[in-house]
């Protein structure tokens, strides 16, 4: 069984499984967003978690001081995702029945004093949080180690937990893209949300149906491309950044047979049985064409679809193209991951001469 879980946990398998669950969640959101589902779901998941924690190797990873925040993260992310969906779906039901959302009920619209209702309770939270952090710091000593030794780096060398998703991206992309462009786009995209999403529905109340596309898109980026990658980076990446199943011993001698090939090599050598052209642009022409097509033709082509045309009409040119560009950039990550797993594709465009690999 443990072997089987280890086998499933490999990103090649666990990422599609995760996506399937994600799809099921939004497809059957009305079922998911009920208290009954939450209770049953929690009860069902407890025994497997207990079973998993009974494993020595898994337990060791879970209780590492560095990993505690991630344990909190998983629990809170699951809860809040469910909680927001629950509230949204409840309001959807009320709206469908012609009622106002719960937040718009007269008793909820009444105003109260900032002091003490807000400020006092905020103070409580501050004190409680301070107590929590202090006790945590006493109980789990800061995971500081010996003075850094440049000739002896820890293995695995892991980023702080909140950057583990980024570090995982580095497996699939060059630093300039995974470390600069993508995080930059994430920040820019988050800033841009209020300007792109001008849908007035959902202001002041939870809902799901009314903002289905926006919520799904965000949840995909947040859960599948950020939280999932953090989990992988934390629990499933061991020495040498090699994949280890959750129940696998972190043997630093473990070797994984991974030999990656560039698209140009696929095209010229394996496909055409030709030597690589010496001109680097010619050599990489296929990858360049595909990449440019992906980033420029695909957004234009999306206008041909019915959904795209409707969206274009609703949003206007600039908003639409910014949104599509962000979506395309976001999708580049799972696409590259899939290509890597399926074809051991190293780079679509390999220009080490310019340090511009993609």
């Amino acid at each position: 069984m443990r072997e089987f879980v280890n086998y499933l946990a490999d990103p090649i398998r666990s990422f599609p499984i995760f996506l399937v669950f994600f799809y099921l969640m939004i497809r059957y959101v009305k079922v998911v967003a009920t208290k009954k589902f939450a209770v049953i779901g929690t009860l069902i998941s407890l025994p497997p978690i207990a079973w998993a924690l009974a494993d020595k190797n898994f337990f060791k990873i879970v209780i590492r001081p560095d990993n505690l925040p991630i344990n909190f993260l998983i629990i809170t992310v699951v809860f809040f995702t469910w909680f927001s969906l629950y509230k949204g779906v409840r309001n959807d039901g009320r709206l469908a029945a012609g009622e106002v959302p719960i937040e718009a009920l007269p008793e909820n619209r009444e105003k109260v004093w900032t002091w003490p209702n807000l400020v006092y309770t905020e103070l409580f939270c501050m004190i409680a949080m301070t107590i929590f952090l202090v006790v945590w710091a006493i109980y789990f000593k800061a995971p500081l180690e010996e003075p850094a030794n440049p000739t002896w780096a820890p293995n695995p060398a892991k980023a702080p937990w909140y950057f583990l998703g980024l570090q995982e991206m580095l497996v699939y992309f060059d630093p300039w893209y995974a470390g600069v462009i993508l995080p930059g786009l994430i920040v820019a995209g988050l800033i841009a949300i209020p300007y792109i999403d001008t849908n007035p529905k959902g202001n002041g109340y939870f809902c799901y149906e009314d903002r289905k596309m926006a919520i799904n898109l965000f949840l995909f980026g947040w859960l599948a491309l950020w939280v999932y990658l953090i989990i992988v980076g934390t629990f499933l990446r061991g020495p040498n950044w090699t994949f280890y199943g959750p129940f696998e011993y972190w043997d630093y001698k473990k070797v994984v047979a991974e030999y990656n090939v560039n698209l140009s090599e696929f095209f010229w050598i394996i496909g055409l049985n030709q030597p690589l052209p010496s001109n680097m642009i010619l050599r990489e022409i296929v990858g360049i064409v595909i990449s440019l097509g992906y980033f420029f033709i695909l957004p234009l082509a999306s206008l041909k679809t019915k959904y795209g045309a409707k969206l274009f009409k609703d949003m206007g040119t600039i908003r639409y193209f910014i949104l599509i560009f962000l979506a395309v950039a976001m999708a580049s990550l799972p696409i590259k991951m899939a290509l890597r797993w399926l074809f051991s594709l190293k780079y679509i465009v390999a220009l080490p001469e310019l340090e511009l690999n993609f």
Partner: protein
Amino acid sequence: MSRKNEPGMAYDMNKLNKIFAFLSVAFLVTVIWVFLDDYIRPWKAYQLEAMQIRRERLSQGIEQFDQNLDKEALDELNKKMEEARLIIAARQDDIEKEERELARLARDLKSQTLINGTLSAKVAEVSFHYGIATSKKKPTEQKLFEKLRDVKEKFAESADRMIALQNAEAEVRGRHKELNGELLEAERGLNELLMSRELMVLAKNKTNIDPIFALRNAPFVDFLDPTLTVDQIVLENISDDRYFVQVPKVDRCITCHTFIDQEGYDDLPNPHKSHPKLDLMVGVNSPHPMKSYGCTTCHGGEGHRVNDFTSIAHSPQNAEQKQEWIKKYNWHEPKYILEPMLPLQYSEASCVKCHQGVEYIPGATVLTEGRNLMEKYGCYGCHKIEGWEHKRKPGPSLERISSKITKDFFKSWVWDPKSFNRHAMMPAFFMQDNNSSEEYMEKNMAEVNAMADYIWEKSKDYKPFMAYRPGNAERGKQLIKDVGCMACHGVEGYETESRKISADSGPYLTGTGSKVDADWLVSWLKKPDHYDPSSIMPSFRLTDQEVQDMATYLMSLRNPTFERLKFEPMNPEARDDILLGYYTAFDPIEVAQAKLDKMSDREKNLDLGFRSVGKYGCYSCHNIDGFSDRAPIGPELTNVGSKPLTQFGFNFQSDVEKTRDGWIKAHLINPARWDRGTDARFQGITRMPNFSLTNREAELMTIALLGQVAYYVPPTGVRQLDAHEIIANEGMKLLNKYGCVNCHQVDGQHGKILANYEDDINEGPPRLVGQGHRQQADWFHYFLENVHPIRPWLKVRMPSYNFTNEERNTLAEGFQAMSKQQTFVDNLQVVKWEPGEREAAKALFDSYACASCHSAGYDKSIEPSAPNLALSKRRLRPTWIKKWLEDPQAIMPGTLMPSFWEGGESMDSTILGGDPVKQIDALTKYILESGNNNFEPGLKKN
């Protein structure tokens, strides 16, 4: 949200206040917890414990003092005190008067000091202004000059008054003291008697746990002036490598190891125990006092940390202790620490850090044992180790091997040396863990066959110059023991003696008859350098008959089982297979095959032989023709003790401790183990041979290897040899190389063979004590080239070596430097006699019956049992003769030479007034005068 409250309120205020109260209390508790967590440190507990221990010891000390106190003396002193008080009381008026006088003088002195100070400052000020005025030619010059005169005069007057007052005070004080004389004396007596008790009481008071102690060490305020503190030693001359920068070493070990540098705490458990070798380490009077050398300099570990037991990188000695520590201290393997503490048994490894380039490190007994073993097994042959380059090749030369042994013997021997001679130092290359499969054995046998072919091909002709004639084996056996062969060789037939001596400079002589050619053997015994000039085997100047007798005995030692062994003949398939493996490394298989097909059988054998000798590194220990330009086969070990742990290949050996010492020890015991589970190809398996070491041997060698570190020690921290020591060490290298120390004890060290002369140590080779002082350098230089018996009655012989002139010089110099002597003695000086002294000397010579032992040249009827005195003039240094006469036992315990002036009392008090100094002088002069002025009897004077 919740139920309705007052208008504008979402919550009930009362409830909010309660929550706030609860949170506030919880916060307070947390804050206190933070301080306590910071306050409670493991080391404080140890310091409190130490305080209690000290207190107990002091109480015991005081109690003991009280018990041993001489009550009568105390009473006496007290009585004296009473009497003194009475006497003084009678003089009370006088005393008071003096005291008043003293008080007045004190006042005057003080006031005079003030005046004096003011004037002195004034003088300085005016001098300055006057100087400026003079140099700048100011009009005020003259005025200032007068003023300066004036203040100087006043200052001189004041100084005079001051002196007068001081004298007056001294006078009064003296009178006062005189008046109080009896009382002061009585007080002094009491003080003397009770002083140490008082000191103990004072020390004990410091261990009181009183409110002040509690306050000073209370939480929150203990930053002010605590008594429980982290104690540390900062070392300027030894540094720690903090990546890119060397910082002075800081050791805080003494925070918990409280009594480590004090005597008398041996019975306590750790950490309060005293250091077990205070006379050598840590102790104030030892050569390595704690304040200058710290702790982690030798023991390793992170000495600056005191957080908890593990962070220091304590290393357990064994699995048992590891378990104990895990239970007791929650110990775990330290991470990312380059230099964790050495397990206790390996501590001596650190000596090498600072004591570099010396043959022996006195005091480091375990380390020396390990290094001797490394030398015995010849680690340095295959592995370069800096500072070991001067040592000879561990194995004998194979350049003329074909005349010594048969090819069959060679093959069976190489295949498994221990099956012929279980004391063999040659390691086993074959039939190991990683090459015992049938296929590999087949290939190995082909290699051995080929190596034999190659070595025989390269072996030069050698014709023994003597023919073997069976003689008397019994006499031969006796001779082997008598002349001193056993200093270097163990010998079959003398098992007990061999074990006692445990000689390892030469091979253990067993089964010799099955091994060597008889004619070769006699030639070898007669003149070893005829066969191999590079050998250290010396000539014992044996007569032909002696040689034949010895050879007869040695040839009678046979190993029939081994003789019956027949080595497999060459298997051409296996040979071709291996050769193909070599050739395909650079050529495609077709080309390699074609190359192989073109070769004749002989060519193939020789090529495989050549490659195999290179593969196994035979040339590293043996001289083999064709390999003079090759570097030793093994990796360098100079810095193996600081090789990062990550660079040790543990492969799949999970039962080996993941430490440096764990790896090295496992490797020494069975080097082939790393290949388990690796599916290594024939060419790629570990080639380090198996030395069949015992666990203890491996451990000792591990210590020696762990000492080979690369850590930087500032020059001030390294033990620097002085000029004498450098020369002495060079000499020591030769003494060691040629096995001189196997026979001769040098200043109390070495001399293995003396184990055979326990009954009468004087029958063994002479012990060399202060030898550089004893002998004259030019005589010794001559002697080494022209060895002749000095003590003809000894059966054991000083052999003749083929030393070069340079080597003889180095040896002579070495001894000289060991005793810090000048090279030459003025031998031309004519003895000058005091009137009557010469007659007295003669009388003494007769009276002490010197000639009864030193009979050579005096009395032919007596067999001499002491050296010929006629040789002394050129052989011995006159100062040494005097020292020797004074007390021979002090120089050489157990010597037969009697002492005639024991305790400074002359045995014959009638001569020279019985004055020992005069008698010794006279005798020395007599010996010098009567001595021959040549190095050897029968030679012309030089």
